[in-house]
Structures are given as structure tokens and as C-alpha cells.
């Protein structure tokens, strides 16, 4: 099957979207008081840094930024074939009573955000949680919506939205791919370490 790739956002579009999100966050919350920004790893983390930088530019206040790893809270842990590599949650401040701006790259089924909400609430009781995403591609499976959206992109479930950020991928862009072949699966051996002839 041929693979079709289409670029829907370039570096300038990503920058403009994040700047607008920064303004919208301040407008919605009447300033930067009691705001904290938490990015979902991997690609929500640099986006959280950039939104914090935008807000610092506008309001001249440095907001606390944290990074959340949701692996332990996924609902597909016992069914997904490939387990994601566990990363560290780095939130070095108390979120109790704060308004948390949760940041991720793509909003799709909503399951990542559900996991992130559980993970956040285990860390404390925030006053409110608001969601900012760079791309909303639709196809929600849970009653979740974003408060701040960089770009709404209508997609088919067979397509893949690939967000690239310079901090991780050396370039800023959002690309849609179609017709991607499914990866092959490898099962672990029943017992790979000991080979006894009994």
C-alpha cells in the first residue's frame, strides 16, 4: 500500500497557534495567577515549555512547568501489545488549589487525557484542570473536550497524525499519513532465559 503524507502545519503555523493559545489561557483565567502548566510526555512536554514562554513574554511572570508520564494510568495496559517505555513524572511543585493547564500534542480518543486526569488527581486536588492541545483530530471515545485548540483537523481513523517538534525531532511540523502498513508483532518466549532439557 502506498503511503500518502501531507503537511498540515509548518513551524510558523505551530508558533502562531501556541501564541494564540497563550493569549486565550490568560484571557480565560483573567491573568496568570495560580496557573501551572503540565505537559504530557513525550510531545506535550516541549509544548508546555513553549506555552509558558509565551505567557512569560506577555505577562512577565514565570509559571511553574511540570511533565507528566501517564504510562501507569493507561487503560490498555493489559491488552496493548507494545508497552510504552515508562518515563518519569517531573512535577516539583504542589498542584493543590492551582489551575492546571494540561498540554498534549494530539487529542484523539480522549483516553490519554482520561489517564492524565487520574494521574494528576493522585498528585493533589487542583482547583481546575484545563486542556490545551496543538491538534484536535476528532474521534473521541470518551466525553472529553479541549479548552484551547491549536488546529482542528478532520481525519479518518485510518490516518495517523504525526506531530514533530524541534526539541525532539529537530523540526516543527504536523503531518497526516495515510495507508501506513501495520507493524508486525513479536511474542515473548515462554521462558527465554533457561533452556533446560528435562
Amino acid at each position, binding site marked *: 500500500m502506498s503511503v500518502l*503524507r*501531507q*503537511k*498540515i502545519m*509548518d513551524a510558523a503555523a505551530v508558533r502562531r497557534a501556541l501564541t494564540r493559545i497563550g493569549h486565550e489561557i490568560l484571557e480565560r483565567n483573567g491573568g496568570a495567577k495560580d496557573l501551572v502548566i503540565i505537559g504530557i510526555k513525550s510531545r506535550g512536554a516541549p509544548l508546555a515549555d513553549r506555552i509558558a514562554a509565551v505567557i512569560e513574554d506577555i505577562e512577565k511572570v514565570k509559571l511553574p512547568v511540570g511533565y507528566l*508520564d501517564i*504510562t*501507569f*494510568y*493507561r487503560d490498555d*495496559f*493489559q*491488552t*496493548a*501489545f*507494545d*508497552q*510504552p*517505555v*515508562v*518515563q*518519569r*513524572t517531573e512535577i516539583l511543585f504542589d498542584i493543590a488549589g492551582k489551575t492546571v493547564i494540561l498540554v498534549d500534542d494530539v487529542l484523539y480518543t480522549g483516553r490519554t487525557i482520561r489517564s492524565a486526569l*487520574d494521574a494528576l488527581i*493522585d*498528585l*493533589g486536588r487542583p482547583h481546575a484542570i484545563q486542556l490545551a492541545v496543538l491538534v484536535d483530530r476528532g474521534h473521541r471515545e470518551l466525553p472529553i473536550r479541549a479548552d484551547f485548540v491549536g488546529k482542528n483537523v478532520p481525519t479518518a481513523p485510518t490516518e495517523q497524525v*504525526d506531530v*514533530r517538534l524541534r526539541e*525532539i*525531532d*529537530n*523540526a516543527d*511540523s504536523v*503531518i497526516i499519513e495515510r495507508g501506513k502498513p501495520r*507493524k508486525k508483532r513479536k*511474542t*515473548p*518466549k*515462554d*521462558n*527465554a*532465559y*533457561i*533452556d*533446560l532439557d*528435562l
Partner: protein
Amino acid sequence: MPKSTPIAKAEKKSAGSRRRKKRQAARLSSRHLLGLENMPAADIELIIRTAVSFKDVLDRPIKKVPPLRGMTVVNLFYEPSTRTRISFELAEKRLSADVVSFTTSTSSVQKGETLRDTINNIEAMKTDVVVIRHRYPGAAHYLTRCCNSIVINAGDGAHEHPTQGLLDIFTLWEIFGSLEGKTVVIVGDIAHSRVARSNIFGLVTLGAKVRVCGPPTLIPVGIEDLGVEVYYNLDNAIKGVDAINVLRIQRERQSGAVLPSLREYTKLFGLNRSRLAAAGPDVVVMHPGPINRGVEMTPEVADGPQSVILSQVTNGLAVRMAVLYLLCGGETTVAER
């Protein structure tokens, strides 16, 4: 829809390398944890990396995460244990599993039930994971052949104690970063020690240099074949090492006269302040517990600044959470049941 834009070759290339990185194996190559013998370095590193995240969870106000929700873990302890059993139980509970613990003194084992019958009966109650400690080497391996559960070896006779080996490695890894080229000496009863064997297998796999030291009666013949250096003099053995792992003298496993007396053992192989001072101020002192204070180690060494014995215990919890987490995830656990 926006216009289609051609993508530069360089960008394509970087995306490819990223995708490879993303697909990095996040699962162990075995379905059970029976020992560190033949465990690939990649698996040990994956467990260590995962344990780092679980250690963070232990410092939170809510020390519980949900991945093992709905799974049932059975702890089968055919030998007495406090540290390992509590550590496994806490690890299971902090991953939200349902836990059943079983000790032989209060069970039908007293009425003569075999291991195979015990496990088949327990498994008929729909359990998912079995953690077993047994006095016979190979007991955990035997279980993998007579039941469908995931089996974790919590010590089988004098064979292996893989989670202890992993937590010792994790503790050293936290201090030194990499174990490549580091020298670790294991002191004491090497012949009867499953901790020593698991440590040797894991450390050698990760490229550390391993020495063993003890009286000749407690050093098995041919241990050099595992890639270790043998010392019979403690002062020589601890010269130039990065860490000293002191083992307990296991009198319950020794048959016959392997030691003239404990006093002589302490004199020749006990770690005390002056010996440790001669080894150097940066040498790390470890002990798998329980300590015979004043036999293999003096209290001032056990409680001294170079001792990491209590952080070994904390790390044990994180490592056991990581092992349970990595073995229980993924669809094979559902499909093969």
C-alpha cells in the same frame, strides 16, 4: 484541507530514526522471572529504568498506581521471610493488584499436599501471578511447567534470588550510573547463597568485575567459570573495589562443619571499621539482610555512612513493582491464559 507540501529528505530521515527510538522494546524477553542467568543486559536495563519511575511513586502522598487492577497475585512462601514477602506484598498492593499470601506453617502443606496440587488448586481460583519462595532449587522453574500463571522466583534454595540481584544492581546503578568496569566483591557464604549467584550473573552481564571472598569451604569449586575472581583473604579482596556486598552466614543451609567457629569467621571475614577504612572512604557497603550483627559485619559499619543497606530495601520495593509491571502488561498474559 490545506495544500499538500513535499517533505524534505532530511526530515524524513530524522522521522525514521525517531520511530525506531519510539519502538524500543518495552517488554521483557521472558514471560517469567526465574533468574538472572542468561537474562540479556537490555532486560536488566529496562527493569532499572522502570524502577526509577516507581521509586518516584513511593515518595508521593498517594503511593498507589492502577496498572494491575483486577489481577490476582499469590505469594507462595515455603520458607520464612520478612523483607522479601512484605516487599512483594507492598509492591503488588501499590500496583492495585489483589494479593493472597500463603505461608506453609498454616496451610495444607502440613497435611502433605504437593507443590503441584497446591498451585493447581490455587490457580483454579483464577489467579494470574505466582510469587514463589522455596527451599528446593528449580521450584519456580517447575511451576512454569505445571501452571499457566506468570511465575516470579522469590528465592529457590541455593539457586537464584533474581529480585535481590536486581535491587542490588539498581542500588549500585543509582550510585555509579553505569556498572561497566566497576568492581564488586561479594563476601561470605558463596556456596549456599542464591543472592551471590543472582548478583554474579547480573553484574557480569552488565560488564562489572566481580570478586568473591570467603573461607575455602564456602566457595564452590569451579566458581571461576562464572567469570569471577576468587579471594580467600578479605583484606586483599576489598582492595581497590567500588562496592562490598556482605552476605549473611546461612546456618540453616549449611550441613556439617564448614566453619570452625563463628568467632573465627568474624576474625577472618567480618567487615569492621578498620578494614573498611583501609578499603577507602568511597566504597559502598551492602547487605541483603537479615544482618547477623557482629558476625559478618560490625554494627558501626552496618549503620555507618558508607552503608546503603536501607536504601537497598527501598529499592527492592521499586524493583519488584517494575518486575511485576513489566511481566503483567501486554496481551500475551490474556491470550495465553
